[in-house]
């Protein structure tokens, strides 16, 4: 059957392909998990907080660990597209460039979410965490924050893929631009854990950040994909 390739059809195809490749190689998941685990263990050796102090610092520690681990995964995202110059085959096809970006972003969202599902229980155990605020809000913050990290990260990883020292370039570009999102996710998480303040402002900020950066990335991805 031949039909015009639609955005969603290609996004779905590319996502399935990426999940299959990751399942077989485990490049991103393994390196991300190992890195995040190391960070958690090192932090736990470095601090010996009380339950009250844990609630105050856990948000920062958790999201910094996830941000660092995400960078490790993001570096892998495009590497398999430039190996064998596979990206050229995509560029030559009539498939919409945005589909490739969306599939990579959704794929990274899934990988980072898996990491969070495995990391959060470890944090709870290591730091003896008990949330004072409503736990469902933590779930919303996690979804918004994870999207903020991966949508930016996937875009800037694509931007830095043709540079010689891309492993260094990515954090250099990504971290400064992620500061507003990082601030929002840390403050929202801390507000929920301590119950001191309402996290709603920070959650709204994260939602706006997600919307703006998703739109901008989708618009700018085509020239990034076709850059020589």
């Amino acid at each position, binding site marked *: *059957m*031949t*039909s*015009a*390739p639609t955005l969603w*059809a*290609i996004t779905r*195809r*590319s996502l399935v*392909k990426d999940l*299959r*490749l990751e399942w*077989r*190689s485990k490049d991103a998941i393994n390196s991300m998990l190992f890195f995040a685990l190391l960070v958690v263990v090192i932090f736990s050796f470095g601090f010996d907080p009380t339950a009250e102090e844990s609630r105050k610092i856990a948000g920062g520690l958790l999201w910094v660990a996830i941000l660092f681990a995400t960078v490790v995964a993001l570096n892998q995202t495009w590497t*398999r597209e430039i*190996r*064998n*110059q*596979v990206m*050229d*085959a*995509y*560029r*030559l*096809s*009539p*498939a919409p460039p945005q589909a490739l970006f969306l599939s990579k972003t959704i794929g990274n969202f899934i990988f980072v979410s898996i990491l969070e599902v495995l990391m959060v229980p470890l944090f709870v155990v290591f730091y003896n965490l008990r949330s004072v605020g409503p736990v469902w809000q933590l779930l919303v913050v996690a979804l918004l924050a994870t999207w903020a990290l991966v949508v930016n990260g996937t875009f800037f990883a694509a931007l830095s893929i043709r540079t010689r020292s891309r492993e260094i370039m990515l954090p250099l570009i990504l971290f400064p631009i992620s500061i507003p999102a990082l601030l929002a996710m840390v403050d929202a998480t801390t507000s929920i854990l301590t119950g001191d303040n309402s996290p709603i402002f920070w959650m709204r900020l994260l939602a706006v950040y997600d919307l703006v950066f998703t739109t901008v990335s989708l618009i700018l991805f085509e020239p990034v994909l076709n850059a*020589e």
Partner: protein
Amino acid sequence: MTETSQPAVSVRDVVRHFGRFAALRGITADFVPGKLYVLLGENGAGKSTLLRVIAGLLAPSRGSVEVLGSSNIRSVATRFGYMGHAPLLYDEMSALENLEYFAALYGITDRARCEQAIRTVGLDPSLERRVGQYSQGMRQRISLARAIVHSPELLFLDEPFSNVDLRSARQMTTLLAKMRDQGTTIFVVTHQAALMEPVADECIVLDAGRLVAREKGIPARLLSPYSVEERDALRDETLRRDSRENAEAPQ
């Protein structure tokens, strides 16, 4: 197709620079449909660059390219196929998985069509081995299958015979001749001119980024690597033309 029909590819004064290095220097040519063109020349002559510029993978620094009557290459993306130096395949997937993915990019969801493309290049579509475990020659053939899975009218092949054994290479040239006879316009960049000699309609010789010769078939003198005298003659002619143009250029 007759030679008076609209060109399949038309390049006009195409120049391509990489930094200060000029890989293509003012190439102008029309290529009629339904022919098999062989691009010859030494390493660095600009053959692959010309192919990439025509396919839209590189933008020309100057000049224009029209493919299948359009200067917007994306608008004719479904009508041409490209096989590059690298295989453009995922090592961790099987041949059929690769083809199913790339066919989907062209809106093709028919598995049988992907299997047929693999059979066309002489391989077994039921092979479950991942492409990364294939020999280089097998990868080249799968790469060709990927380039033709959507039945393009125009086909660009960059070194399709590198690391391919002679028997497989001959099978590939037979396939290309068959496709040409069915109306496909084919461009082949190769250093193995002798392989293409029985099927080539025209050869285009590039040297130092210039189109220096265009001949019917592949003349015997081009079948073997250039003699030192021929290479020097081509280079001298190019240098003479350059200095002449520089002298004539307005200051």
